[in-house]
């Protein structure tokens, strides 16, 4: 299977004016992008702001994206440049950046940042999500757990997993899907449960 084909199909839809397809790209890469930006800034809230700015820059630059490289490679490059610029900007005027930033950049949502950053509720929910997923993975049958871990942790393709597990590619696809379904059943309870934060993923 050619790499990046699903991203490319979403990218093409965005380029044709479908903003909803860009939501899917953001959902898929937001954690990876924040993790990447956190190599440059330590504060998770600041990293999220930079990641948000990077996504918006990527959206605006998407008409120039021709698909010569993988979308995520292109996106990572934008995020790294945005993070570097943010660090330089912060070093030059740290007070202005951290306290008195008054610009018209819509990507900078100070209110949202103050509201959501590092609240006890947010931290609890993150921990709950993490423990739920880990518990669900532990409860999986061995073949399903191996398949999902090889895919998510090692980043192996279905073909490579099939070779490693000595089974057909179709079986790998089925095992990964069933593993995700089992995890998702428990994860959905967390998002749709008492804390009522499900809309944040949507």
């Amino acid at each position, binding site marked *: *299977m050619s*790499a990046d*084909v*699903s*991203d490319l*199909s*979403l990218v093409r839809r*965005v*380029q*044709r004016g*479908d*903003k*909803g*397809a*860009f*939501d*899917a790209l*953001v*959902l*898929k890469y*937001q*954690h990876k992008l*924040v*993790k990447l930006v*956190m190599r440059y800034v330590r504060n*998770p809230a600041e*990293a*999220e702001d930079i990641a*948000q700015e990077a*996504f*918006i820059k990527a*959206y605006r630059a*998407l008409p120039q994206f021709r698909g010569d490289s993988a979308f995520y490679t292109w996106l990572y490059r934008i995020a790294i440049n945005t993070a570097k610029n943010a660090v330089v900007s912060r070093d030059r005027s740290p007070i202005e950046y951290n306290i008195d930033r008054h610009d018209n950049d*819509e990507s900078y949502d100070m209110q*949202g940042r103050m509201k*959501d950053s590092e609240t006890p509720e*947010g931290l609890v929910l*993150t921990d709950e*999500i*993490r423990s739920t*997923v880990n518990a669900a993975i532990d409860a999986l049958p061995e073949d399903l757990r191996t398949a*999902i871990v090889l895919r*998510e*942790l090692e980043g192996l393709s*279905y073909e490579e997993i099939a070779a490693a597990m000595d089974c057909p590619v179709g079986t790998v*696809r*089925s095992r*990964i*899907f069933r593993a*995700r*379904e089992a*995890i*998702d059943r428990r*994860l959905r309870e967390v*998002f749709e449960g008492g804390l009522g*934060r*499900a*809309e944040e*993923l*949507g």
Partner: protein
Amino acid sequence: MNEELDSQLSAMFDDELPPEECELLARRLSRDEQLKARWGRYAVMGAVVRAERGVRLNAPLAGRVSAVLLAEPALGTQSLPGAAQRAAVRWWQPLAASALAAGVAAAAILWLRAESPPAGIPLSASVQLATPAVGSAPVMPASASGSVGRADSYVVPPSPGVRAVIVPSTELANYVVAHSMFSSPVARRNLLSAFMTSEPTTGGAEEPQDDAKSTAP
């Protein structure tokens, strides 16, 4: 939810879905909020498995980006740089083609006018070939009316509405008539009759001259 659809979604998340299926599912994914939420949870699972510490799994980043992009114009409605250039080319191409065609036509007309003989000069053979037949204007000898003792004079009836390109034909007749005094009456008559009979036909200028030569003494 449809299990097959979810299976496809899982494969698409891993870039393991065939391109044609990807196209269809991408369309559905961009519109179906439930499917999108499931897609987002798949991303959360991956982040947990990779133990991405420090990353908030419940961060409202996607919602914030989406809110900002609401104010942005959709990309399809904006003119892309390359597309705009191509559109501009498409816009002026027909005009340029029309202008070129008009220029060529104007140049051809000017050339034809420059090539055609000016008024007062005997019509050349090539021009007379292109001249429409105007046989409706026969040359009438004035002597036919019975005036005796006067010099022979011939009057060509005026032909209103005849275009300028026909004028040389009339002038040729006048020219022949004016110089007829220097030729013998028989030759003159033959020449004129040959001229008159030749004009309504194909209009070839050489035929009457040949006739005239053949009948000339």
